[in-house]
């Protein structure tokens, strides 16, 4: 097998380990930054992962073969793209564990063994749901609170919301 093939196999192996890299870095940072918003800690661990990814490529891929500059750019773009997409997926998995109502419901039933139906609405009502999310959005700097009013602060999640509304139209979800 040529050295080129070997280095491509190493790229595949390094990228396949991306979720594990995310998890290990997140484990370290989550313990180190307990006062920060959990979502921000997760994002910081992902950014740290870019540095680790580049180090792994530098140590195990680039020294093995003499690459043209265009090949190095192609490898970096590919690795950056795949790592970003896998990290995005990891972030959503973490966020689900943090904020998903369905996961919370499963957890409450698991802790109690079984839960009476009428308890569930009391346990987790609209006011609590909104309250939690307002706190989170302020911690993530997407909302500001001033003189008793909430208003938009950051734009990222708002733009994501607009994209999602458009995508719902494409899928025909608004019509059903």
């Amino acid at each position, binding site marked *: 097998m040529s050295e080129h*093939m070997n280095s*491509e196999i190493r*790229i*595949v192996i390094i990228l396949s380990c991306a979720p594990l890299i995310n998890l290990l870095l997140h*484990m370290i940072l*989550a*313990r180190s930054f*307990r006062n920060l918003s959990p979502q921000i800690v997760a994002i910081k661990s992902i950014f740290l992962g870019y540095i680790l990814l580049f180090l792994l490529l530098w140590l195990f891929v680039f020294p093995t073969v003499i690459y043209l500059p265009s090949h190095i750019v*192609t490898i970096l773009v*590919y690795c950056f*793209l*795949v790592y970003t*997409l*896998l990290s*995005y*997926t990891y972030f*959503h998995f973490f966020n*689900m*564990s*943090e*904020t998903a*109502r*369905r*996961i919370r*419901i*499963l*957890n409450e*039933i*698991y802790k109690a063994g*079984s*839960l*009476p*139906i009428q308890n*569930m*609405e009391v346990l987790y*009502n*609209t006011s609590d*749901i909104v*309250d*939690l*999310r*307002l706190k989170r*959005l302020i911690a993530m700097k*997407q*909302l500001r609170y001033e003189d008793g*009013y*909430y*208003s*938009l602060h950051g734009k990222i*999640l*708002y733009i*994501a*919301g*607009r994209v*999602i*509304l458009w995508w*719902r139209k494409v*899928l*025909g*979800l608004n019509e059903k």
Partner: protein
Amino acid sequence: MNPMVFLYGFLFFIICLMIHITVWRIKISKISALLLVLIFVVIPGVGFSIVMLTDAGGIKDILSTNAIELAEILILHISLSSAYIASYPAARAISPSLGILLIIKTSKEGKMTKEDIIKEYKGSIRVPTRFDTLRVYNLVSEKDACYKLKPLGKLIIIIFIFYRKLLGISAGSG
């Protein structure tokens, strides 16, 4: 690295996306998440694996790729697909966080009190709608006016509890 990896990776993802849009516009299944995994991951994954192992239909020659490049194409496709599948729940049922941002932005003065936000949301994010999904996916059962976890529901929550323990943080607040 063969630049065609990018083209083929995106192309396969877009083909799956077109199939997804077509199926959804015909009928939205209650088990939409499972269908997504089937369309984006299982069928392409099985197809790629067969092609990589057997070179069925001379695909490697048609695409001018070798086995490693096919693996790279598959990884790119799976990455795009997993990112899309992870985003889908927010589109299926607009997440309260995004919903709150949208209604504040479109409100008369671009700002709202907590009470107004809660009033806007009463009825649209009721907990019972979440139970429908848990029931459809066989995660909970209803017996003697109580909710109980089914084996799959128990497995899922144990995975999440273990994951949170690995991170050294307590359970999420939902």
